[in-house]
């Protein structure tokens, strides 16, 4: 057996201590997540069945479901992505490719500020600008509100990811006679794709959990959506409504809806990761 000097032994024990501490922290973090998921699952599984997933809400005692809320959330998410992600990416490209002039720094500062605006404020803003003008709530307004939350997040992560693309890659393309726009779109963006996707996922995850802005814009509905100009239901608002109700049956439905929401977010995550996997890295 090796005889360790005192210094060695003390170093080893400090190392072991730190390793155990970090392991402990990891377990705590992961553990909390598991606890939350299990708790939700436990509480929600009882109300979860096929009818629940496709039915519209009904008065207490008649069952009902979150079918329209699922569709509604999906539509709102889709709408916000269609508007928010391209605009966000374009912003990110602008910020990264056009260097450090005062205007660019100004834009960057504004975007950073936007990231920090409470979502309810965004909701109220869209309420004032769109809902009041249109004189009714709509899915359209809800989508815009969510998009406004998404844009700064996507823009900043896009910018950071593009900056991470090594300059040498750009030079290689330029040296072959590619004009700047081609280099950006054809070489830099694909190279930054997985990072940009991460940013998009972060943004999607963020807005899927938003309730407050939807209260002022999409408002909520008990029916399946027919067009984007009408109020629309969403999982988050539905969960809110059920949770603050005094009925146990609706509480159970709220848990089940929460479980469904978590499952949806997880699936989106997995699908996007798969689609943008870096084949060549």
């Amino acid at each position, binding site marked *: 057996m090796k005889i360790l000097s005192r210094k060695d032994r003390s170093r080893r024990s400090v190392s072991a201590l730190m390793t155990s501490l970090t392991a402990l922290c990891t377990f705590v973090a992961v553990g909390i997540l598991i606890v939350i998921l299990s708790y939700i699952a436990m509480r929600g599984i009882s109300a979860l069945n096929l009818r629940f997933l496709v039915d519209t809400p009904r008065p207490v005692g008649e069952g009902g479901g979150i079918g329209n809320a699922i569709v509604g959330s999906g539509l709102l998410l889709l709408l916000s992505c269609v508007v928010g992600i391209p605009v966000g990416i374009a912003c990110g490209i602008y910020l990264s490719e056009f260097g450090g002039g005062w205007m660019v720094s100004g834009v960057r500062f504004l975007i950073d500020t936007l990231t920090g605006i409470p979502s309810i404020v965004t909701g109220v803003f869209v309420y004032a600008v769109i809902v009041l003008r249109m004189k009714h709530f709509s899915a359209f307004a809800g989508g815009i509100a969510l998009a406004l939350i998404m844009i700064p997040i996507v823009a900043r992560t896009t910018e950071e990811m593009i900056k991470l693309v090594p300059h040498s*890659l750009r030079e290689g393309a330029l040296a*072959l*006679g590619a004009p700047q726009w081609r280099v950006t779109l054809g070489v830099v963006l694909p190279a930054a794709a997985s990072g940009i996707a991460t940013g998009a996922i972060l943004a999607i995850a963020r807005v899927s959990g938003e309730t407050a802005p939807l209260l002022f814009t999409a408002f909520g509905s008990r029916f399946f959506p027919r067009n984007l100009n009408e109020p629309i239901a969403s999982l988050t608002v539905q969960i809110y409504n059920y949770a603050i109700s005094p009925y146990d049956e609706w509480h159970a439905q709220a848990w089940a809806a929460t479980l469904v929401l978590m499952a949806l977010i997880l699936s989106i995550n997995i699908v996007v990761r798969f689609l943008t996997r870096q084949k060549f890295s």
Partner: protein
Amino acid sequence: MSASTSFAAPKFEVKSHSSAGSTVTKIAVEDLNFFYGKTQALKGISIEIPERQVMAFIGPSGCGKTTFLRTLNRMNDVIAGTRVEGKVAIDGAEIYAAGADVVDLRKKVGMVFQKSNPFPKSIFDNVAYGLKINRMTSSRSELDGRVEEALKDAALWNEVKDRLKSSALGLSGGQQQRLCIARALAIRPEVILMDEPASALDPIATSKIEELIVDLKKQYTIVIVTHNMQQAARVSDLTAFFLLGKLVEVNSTEKMFTAPTEKLTEDYITGRFG
């Protein structure tokens, strides 16, 4: 013989002793001055680079040889705050003239960089990139043919012909550099600029690249920047020695390494400074 003996004295007589092979001038540079903002990086460079030969640029770090190389295909344009004075003419046409087409220039003058920079795409797509964006081929088979030709010219075909669709980043360092050379060759430039192409490679990979360079000069004009003097000696027909932004001497490589004209050159080559 040079009139200057002091290290820091500004006046040098440049002697051009191009003697090997073709003497048709491919690139003519006249009194080139280059500025990074307020700093002058190149001072009064005048040189004639003949076609279908290899010219090596040597000199200590910071002497301006890479900066000068990059002025030849206007790669310094992408750096903010740079300014060029003087003339650079390729085949008689000035490349810094107002209205000169940079894209055309870069199709004619290709570049290989110090650290290989393949795109994160397949081997085939890397080589085909230049051909595709410049729309140089009209059919898939023509594209395939050009890619194969370029890979053969870069002595890489046999090693990758069975895995053209696999990632370029899976190749070894030396192979990646040869891939970058193939990528540059695919668009059939006339001049190839190489910035220390083998500095990141092991000796065997280096010697493969060096042999490739000697083969390529039959068809292309090659300018190579190297900090390795033995490499310049092995590979080039002509050598230009730069110091502190100035061109000190241009000579046939054989003369440069046995009996250079300028004392400064000799001091550098014999390792007295640098």
